[in-house]
């Protein structure tokens, strides 16, 4: 039998709803399976753990050729229509409703849950410096701001997953 996975390090690099959730779901799912998990937020992925941003995560409707209406198997939305004001907000609210039905929590609640489940959360130092952020900008669940070197150290023995 192949070796079971014991530890994962998940990198969240994008700040859209569909950029953030897969990493959160995988981290939570890992803990639910008894697998050690670490989340590392970099570039716009940091928005998932920035106090002023995390409650306003949206789906990108501009430049998203996969967008369909009224749902995933519906008609392809012409990409220029994604730019109509309110489109992103509309798509986001629709998807959030579907997520709520599946018991997928809003970002802030999910981050709290994952942290309470024993997953460690880290922000990327290079991005924090580039965006002129400080530790105070982040929700309290962020354990530390670390360099990429520290990230690799902490990921010893882990499978690294980039999202």
């Amino acid at each position, binding site marked *: 039998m192949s070796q079971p996975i014991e530890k994962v390090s998940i990198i969240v690099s994008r700040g859209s709803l569909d950029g953030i959730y897969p990493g959160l779901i995988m981290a939570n*799912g890992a803990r*639910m*399976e*008894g697998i050690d998990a670490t989340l590392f937020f970099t570039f716009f992925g940091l928005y998932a753990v920035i106090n002023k941003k995390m409650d306003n995560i949206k789906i990108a409707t501009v430049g998203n050729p996969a967008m369909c209406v009224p749902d995933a198997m519906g008609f392809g939305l012409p990409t220029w229509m994604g730019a109509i004001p309110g489109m992103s907000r509309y798509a986001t609210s629709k998807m959030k409703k579907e997520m709520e039905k599946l018991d997928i929590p809003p970002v802030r609640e999910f981050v709290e849950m994952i942290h309470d489940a024993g997953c460690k959360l880290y922000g990327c130092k290079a991005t924090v410096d580039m965006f002129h952020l400080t530790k105070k900008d982040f929700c309290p669940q962020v354990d530390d701001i670390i360099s990429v070197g520290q990230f690799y150290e902490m990921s010893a023995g882990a499978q690294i997953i980039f999202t």
Partner: protein
Amino acid sequence: METKSLGRDADGHLANRNDWNEKVAEDLAIEEGIEKLTDRHWIVINFMRKEFAEKGDAPSIRKLTKESGVDTKELYALYPKGPAKKSAKIAGLPKPKGCI
């Protein structure tokens, strides 16, 4: 342990829910490395059984956290290797199907 002779599914959970009783739960807990089921463990087990009886699937970890009366931190302290999965097994239920 009499539990050994009971039918299991592919995940090692009880194949037949009617085989379950509190003694079986205690034996299943020992299989999972939990020596003694406390009152707090039982709150989770009873909640799982109630939800399963009503909905036909075990509750999500979010529902467990919000409604069982045991919060996320304590859930993982009681069932370190996965609260939903382990408590479902001890409760004599199949492995939860949901992702959350």
